[in-house]
């Protein structure tokens, strides 16, 4: 019985992980860009919601606005900074984005203080859902539902539209895409903003669950990497499956062998890479 509860709980966690990781996966797999600043966008999303609700803005408005602002900031960063380094080796991607992540984190501390805070879920979702022995926060149920809808929309965008193909092409040769008359530079910006916006949304959604504090970005980055690597870089479906997998494993392990939960996840990730060269579903 308890495993059933843990399963549901794991799915809830997993959907959030998916949302967090899928942006990284897109940026990673399609732009070939290693983005260690992904956690920073998650952090910003959470803090923006926190800030707005503290100022009395409606939570729903905050939830809508925060990812948009994050996406805008990401687009700006991409245009000013990142597009200059796409062509460089991964090392420089890591250097720049680690630097950016540090800067964002410290800016958050400067703006909102080092202690962090609490975001209350909207009143309609403040309670718990009960079914016999099964008790689950309504807000978490809402998150599962919302991410599901988003997942479908995203899938269509990436696999069903020409944009998806263009971006994949651009990841191989920007020159060649330009030669076909496509302004790859703008496409890249859009994709980067989309990925970052998703992270911002994940942060905004997570804020009422786990509060906000300046170091939540680093932690989120770790999880996102695990999910992306297990799922396979650039694979949308992979991110979904891996997100759920990690969520469920983490949740079930909490009952089975709590001490080893983390160890298991990294061990699992290592095993997946070793046995499946490109993660579960990665393309290249």
């Amino acid at each position, binding site marked *: 019985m308890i495993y059933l509860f843990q399963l549901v709980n794991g799915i809830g966690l997993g959907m959030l992980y998916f949302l967090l990781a899928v942006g990284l996966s897109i940026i990673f797999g399609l732009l070939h860009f290693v983005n260690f600043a992904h956690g920073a966008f998650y952090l910003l999303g959470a803090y923006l919601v926190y800030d707005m609700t503290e100022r009395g803005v409606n939570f729903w408005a905050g939830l809508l606005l925060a990812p948009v602002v994050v996406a805008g900031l990401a687009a700006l960063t991409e245009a000013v900074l990142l597009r200059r380094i796409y062509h460089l080796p991964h090392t420089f991607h890591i250097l720049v984005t680690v630097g950016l992540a540090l800067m964002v984190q410290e800016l958050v501390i400067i703006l909102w203080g080092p202690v962090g805070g609490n975001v209350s879920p909207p009143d309609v979702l403040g309670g718990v859902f009960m079914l016999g022995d099964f008790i689950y926060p309504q807000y978490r149920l809402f998150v599962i539902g919302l991410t599901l809808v988003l997942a479908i929309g995203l899938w269509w965008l990436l696999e069903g539209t020409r944009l998806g*193909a263009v971006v994949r*092409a651009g990841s191989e040769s920007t*020159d060649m895409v330009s*030669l*076909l*008359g496509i*302004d*790859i530079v703008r496409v890249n910006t859009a994709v980067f903003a989309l990925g970052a916006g998703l992270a911002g949304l994940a942060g905004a959604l997570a804020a009422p669950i786990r509060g906000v504090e300046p170091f939540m970005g680093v932690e989120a980055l770790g999880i996102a990497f695990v999910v992306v690597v297990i799922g396979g870089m650039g694979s949308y479906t992979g991110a979904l499956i891996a997100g759920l997998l990690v969520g469920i494993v983490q949740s079930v392990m909490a009952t089975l062998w709590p001490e080893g939960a983390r160890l298991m996840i990294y061990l699992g990730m290592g095993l997946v890479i070793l046995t499946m060269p490109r993660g579960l579903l990665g*393309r290249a």
Partner: protein
Amino acid sequence: MTAALLEIENVHGYYGKSHILQGVTLEVRAGEVVTLLGRNGAGKTSTLKSISGLLSPSAGRVRFAGTDVTGWRPHRIAQRGLALVPEHRGIFGLLSVEENLRIAERKGSPWSLKDVYRIFPRLEERRRNGGGQLSGGEQQMLAIARALLNAPKLLMLDEPVEGLAPVIVDEIVDQIRKIRATGIPILLVEQNLAVCTELADRHYILELGRVVYHGTHDEFAADEATKDRYLGVKAH
């Protein structure tokens, strides 16, 4: 005589500090096939790159259809209708054959996906394959097909028959002829003199980044001395 569609005038280009193009001047007029010949390393590819915007000329002008496009970003030049099939073909390995074609599709192209499949049936057979899994010749076909879908007003082909089987060479030469017949001029870089002879109206020969010879097809055909001097073709 029709006005030149593409004019390049005294173009200079550098890779880092090496001065590769040292004042190239040439033109392509409507409806003609012009070849650019020269030894390895003469600067043929670099010339095409400077026309398409991949290599920004440090001096000189590139004019296309009456517009000065010097220093434009490649996608804007391409949108004007200048299509380049590069020597390394630029196939997207992560995309399937069909996706490679689809992203090149542009309104106003006289060729449709159906047309190119008719021209290159091999591509249709392998349309679900990843671009990276094609044989060399298949890749070349795909690259040309893609350029056709991109609504070209002028086609630049960099060694299009390199590595192709003779039957395919025939086929491609045929297709190039057909393309010319539609009125689309072609700037062709080719090492294969036979192909050039089949197709070209005029020839330029490049050496050390400069045009050292220019002549019509007939003049060139008769000029064994030039062939020998610049291309090392001995009359057997």
